[in-house]
């Protein structure tokens, strides 16, 4: 439990969308026009969440799990259908202008800068909106552009920048006014590895230097592993896991992932080999045509590997501590609601 007061808090938050459903066939279309069938879709259900200042929280989940909806409720874009969302101690949907100066939002799939003009001109507009004084503005732009390696691209029309450069500009814009809380909705989507790494480093540095609270949604586990202290896993609008990454790893500390690459002439995996796994308490977690990944307790790892050499023609083999991706897959697989650590 955090000793700090929360900078944002959700109490039993729910969000329900109404979606129109069309009947089948021509008659269904006409009937639907006269009498609409509406189906309610629960995007969020009973969400309880508290985030302390300076935390970096990773929000993950499958498509439609409710990540973006939660971010929209927390930033006051849309009201929650039930419960209460608070940011800076105020109702998130009724934030004052002073509150809004303390937050920022970056949406990976939707540019917030002006498409037809150079980014620097958009920044000047943001400067007026957030009332940043001129000297601080110039310094911030220069520093951040240097960190993100886009200094020479500031004067280029946004439409003429690459996806990675555009996202870096979005991030500069988001951090111009030195916000206390930044929400990033899939900021690395579609970016190359180098750009992703630059952005992650930037987020870590800003968090360390200014204690900026960061809420990050992503499908990329590397974003979460390299950036976040805390992980929140959403599924079907519920929180499936909320805790720190160290705690999550500790739950699986005694497990190892064994990845085996097979020679072309090796026997393939088949169901009759299940019995061979049971002897070691191992589980097959991923199967590809010439590659298998198993999970096994650390104490059985060595004999299990020896046995694998007996079973298959092994071309290559790697042993790792359980990667985060597997841990999350395990949580999703069991559907287990994990206590916050």
């Amino acid at each position, binding site marked *: 439990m955090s000793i700090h007061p929360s900078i944002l808090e959700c109490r039993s938050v729910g969000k329900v*969308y109404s*979606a129109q459903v069309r009947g089948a066939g021509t008659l269904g279309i006409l009937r639907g026009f006269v009498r609409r069938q509406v189906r309610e*879709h629960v*995007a969020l259900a009973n969400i309880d969440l508290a985030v302390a200042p300076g935390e970096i929280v990773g929000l993950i989940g499958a498509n439609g799990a409710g990540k*973006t*909806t939660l971010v*929209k409720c927390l*930033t*006051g*874009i*849309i*009201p929650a259908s039930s419960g209460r969302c608070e940011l800076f101690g105020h109702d998130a*949907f009724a934030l004052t*202008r*002073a*509150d*809004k*100066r303390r*937050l*920022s*939002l970056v*949406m990976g799939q*939707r540019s*917030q800068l*002006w498409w*037809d*003009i*150079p980014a620097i*001109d*958009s920044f*000047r*507009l943001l400067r*007026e*909106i*957030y*009332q940043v004084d001129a000297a601080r503005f110039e310094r911030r732009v220069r520093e951040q552009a240097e960190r993100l390696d886009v200094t020479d691209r500031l004067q280029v*029309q946004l439409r003429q920048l690459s996806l990675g450069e555009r996202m870096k500009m979005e991030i500069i814009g988001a951090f111009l006014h030195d916000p206390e809380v930044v929400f990033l909705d899939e900021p690395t989507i579609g970016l190359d590895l180098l750009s992703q790494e630059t952005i992650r480093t930037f987020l870590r540095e800003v968090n360390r230097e200014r204690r900026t609270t960061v809420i990050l949604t992503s499908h990329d586990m590397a974003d979460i592993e390299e950036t976040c202290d805390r992980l929140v896993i959403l599924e079907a609008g519920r929180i499936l896991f909320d805790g720190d990454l160290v705690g999550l790893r500790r739950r699986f500390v005694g497990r190892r992932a064994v990845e085996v690459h097979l020679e072309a002439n090796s026997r393939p995996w088949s169901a009759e080999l299940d019995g061979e796994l049971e002897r070691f308490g191992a589980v097959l977690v991923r199967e590809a045509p010439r590659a298998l990944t198993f999970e096994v307790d650390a104490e059985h790892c060595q004999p299990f590997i020896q046995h694998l050499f007996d079973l298959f023609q092994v071309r290559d083999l790697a042993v790792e501590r359980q990667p985060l991706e597997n841990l999350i897959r395990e949580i999703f697989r069991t559907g287990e609601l994990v206590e916050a650590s």
Partner: protein
Amino acid sequence: MSANAFVQHLRIAGQYARIGVIRKSQFRVEFWSQVVMDCCWYASHVAVFEVLYAHVDDIAGWNREQFRVLLGFLFVSDAFMMVWLGQMWRFWRDLKDGKLDSFRVRPGATLFLYGFQQFSVEGCVNMAVAMTYLAYGIGRACEHVTLGLVLVTLIAVAVSWWVRTILVTFYGLVDLWLLGSDAGQFVNEAIHAVADRPADVFGARVRTFLLYILPVGALTQVPAGMVLGRYTPLGAVVAVGWLGMLGVGMFAAWNRGFRRYESAMG
């Protein structure tokens, strides 16, 4: 709104104007085609009423000269829409597409930040054309052009801009309430059908409604009436004060209506 917030919004408007100029310097065809488009719109209105006045001297108490003043205010308020409020034409679609998210989290009036973002340089040219037509109309309708008349005209122009903003807010509100219905477009058509004729063609009750409740008629008839001396000074002050309050109420209603904004599901 505090003085500080007002100044902040003025500065933001300045930046929007700057961005508009930068954008338009890159798209010359767009510049000229929009200028010509609005001139076509002005021409079609002038042509219709020149045709009608070729057959009569008076329509609902407005002679040809007075009618030009009324049309002049229609053009001036429309040019204001083109200069500052062009983004509102796309409101219904942006609403459906959930494109108001970023404006919602900014520290400013959402309606202002969204609605005023598309400053149009070509609209300024159209404003010059509209102002010229209005000046021509006033010159023909009024015997003596005095300093007082110029001042009243300037106030009347501000009134027509203010009423235009109220009406644009109103059809944004319709879109918010009938979310994604595209109903604002129909309301816009209805507003234009009424605004480019004198409200005096309607019966007394409808006229009062159109001038002071849903102030479509006030877009043209109130400012034209002020310039043509159809209002007493006190009457003009009361009308302007009422329209001012009506606008504030409309903006408040718009902010409440925003609770219906669903963004895009995600």
